[in-house]
């Protein structure tokens, strides 16, 4: 019994691939939501920039299927493989990382990673990028508190319960609540990041708490939009709603004044930056050793978007210079804590 070599053991950490041989892969949950579709489009844009194409993979929010795709991918030619992956959940990251390490494929992950898994322990896992969920949860919590005048009842719509993003964001809300003592959390329910579920849950919560509800905190924009529909159907226009992600519809809602705030996460940039980091290392323009430890796992810059600054974010632009090998980490807000 012996180990089957996937790609012949770890390749040279700093690649010397011909730029034309690099194989770019972007993997997200599905193409049927605007954020992730935009992510893949960003990847395509970067690939075009370097004269390549990106292989678009989707796994339909199915953890096992993601693993299956990754291991199939790693069973092929991994010499100059660059993967920009959105792991379905925290627990999905370790096997992807180990697989890539073993096969010698360059990997950038985003959003989900167990806290005790260190990027610096690996050679080909180049970087992990995420937004500070606690921070965003707190930011919109504060914005919500302000919108309802500092006091009153709010309800919270949580995301898929077993994801780190949902937990961090809710922890951020709790921090915010600790600071705004007059804001009372009336109820918290999960709507699984889904617009349709948020609609039903919000309706139920509205009929349960009635006029006491002054604000709705949603762990993402999709749920916030669902909550907005519920409010409209209940004929309530006195309730403030906040979300996270800055999807186009949410920005429109903020412009219209029906929604209070959201936090930007820049899908097209995320789709490009992961591939860019991998590409630079694969082609030898950047050595892994040269990436600073604080750039191996970092928080990307995010902005609280409210009515006064929403115009700046309506058409997110990725700048080619964002992906230049010497400018890859310009959006870093510091290492992950």
């Amino acid at each position, binding site marked *: 019994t012996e180990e089957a070599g*996937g790609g012949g053991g770890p390749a040279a950490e700093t690649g010397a691939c011909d730029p034309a041989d690099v194989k770019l892969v972007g993997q997200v949950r599905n193409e049927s939501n605007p954020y992730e579709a935009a992510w893949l489009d960003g990847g395509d844009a970067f690939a075009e920039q370097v004269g390549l194409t990106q292989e678009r993979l989707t796994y339909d*929010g199915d953890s096992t299927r993601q693993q*299956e795709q990754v291991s199939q991918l790693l069973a092929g030619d991994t010499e100059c493989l660059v993967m920009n992956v959105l792991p379905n959940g925290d627990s999905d990251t370790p096997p992807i990382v180990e697989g890539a390490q073993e096969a010698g494929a360059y990997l950038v992950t985003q959003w989900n990673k167990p806290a005790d898994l260190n990027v610096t322990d690996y050679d080909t896992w180049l970087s992990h990028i995420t937004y500070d969920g606690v921070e965003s949860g707190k930011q919109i919590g504060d914005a919500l508190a302000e919108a309802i005048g500092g006091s009153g009842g709010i309800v919270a719509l949580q995301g898929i319960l077993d994801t780190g993003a949902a937990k961090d964001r809710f922890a951020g809300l709790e921090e915010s609540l600790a600071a705004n003592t007059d804001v009372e959390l009336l109820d918290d329910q999960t709507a699984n990041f889904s617009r349709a579920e948020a609609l039903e849950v919000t309706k139920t919560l509205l009929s349960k708490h009635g006029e006491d509800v002054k604000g709705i905190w949603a762990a993402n924009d999709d749920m916030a939009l669902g909550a907005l529909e519920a409010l409209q159907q209940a004929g309530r226009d006195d309730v403030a709603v906040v979300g996270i992600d800055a999807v186009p519809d949410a920005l429109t809602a903020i412009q219209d004044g029906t929604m209070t705030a959201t936090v930007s996460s820049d899908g097209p940039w995320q789709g490009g930056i992961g591939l860019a980091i991998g590409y630079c290392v694969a082609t030898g323009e950047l050595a892994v050793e040269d990436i600073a430890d604080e750039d191996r796992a970092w928080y990307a810059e995010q902005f609280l978007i409210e009515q006064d600054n929403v115009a700046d974010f309506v058409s997110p632009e990725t700048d080619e210079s964002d992906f230049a090998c010497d400018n890859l980490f310009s959006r870093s807000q510091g290492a992950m804590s």
Partner: protein
Amino acid sequence: MSAPALTSPAPDAVVPGRPTVGQRLTAFMPVIALVVLLAALTIADPGFLTLSSLTAAVRTSAPLVVLAAGATLVVLCGGIDLSIAALCSLATVFFALWLPDLGGITTVAIIAATGAIGALQGVAHVLFRIPSFIVTLGGMSIFTAVALVISDAGPVRVVDRDATNWLTLYVGGVVPMAFVVALVLVAAVSLVLRLTPLDSWIRATGYSESAARLAGAPVDRVKIAAFTVSGACAGLAAVMLVSRNFSGSPTMADNLLLPAVAAIVVGGTAITGGHGSLWRSLAGALVVTLLRVGLPIVGVPSAYEQILYGAIIVAAVALTLDRSKVLIIK
């Protein structure tokens, strides 16, 4: 009866009772479907047919094979087990939580525990006469809730990898151990069925429960046993998943439910019970795995991938189902 004038069979008639060439062929249909699919994928992307790629595919398929094999028994009895995936997820959490205390025997403990849980569902089914669909649907949501609560709604890391390391090895350098285990399971269960009266009891139960009962077949016990094995298989699949993911998570296997049932049906086992086998489910699971991983890897765009997936599984069942055994297709 005096002097029965038995019609002598026509000389050119086929030897009665033995399977004809056509019948033999239908038994191999699942394998044929598998080969055809593999050929098609290879044509789409010649790079797909490599040893390492096939190795990865069978390694990937192992948990699905195990889940489908267990649930096949329930389907053969005429029921359905919708709880396998949720139970498997729960088991991954149990595994991760128990491993520090139980060490090496965790695997055995998990399989025993999930077997017991499966048995419990079986007992609820036969005792209260609740349709298996409902019992296991309820089981599914209960297991998910329990898994969420005990895991604190998050993945539980497995630091000590020695307990599951053996599953990640390769036999002879190419065949993944997990797949070997799955094969051994299918072979062992099939052998036990074949060598004991269990096989006829299960089929009798699936084809005609009331006739089986009036013939004194231990229908209730057979059903409970099927649910037990199905549960235990969910536990084994959980161990395989943990060995692959290095953690347990309350929703880890949830998405394997429909693929597992699809694998059973694609193999040609009748969803109404009675006709089918574990081998068919093995082939079915491989077909489903190839579809799940193969289509995107050979470069089919996501939207078309779903359309193709839908069309191909229907076509595969059209090929594999032995319609002489299943008279009414519901």
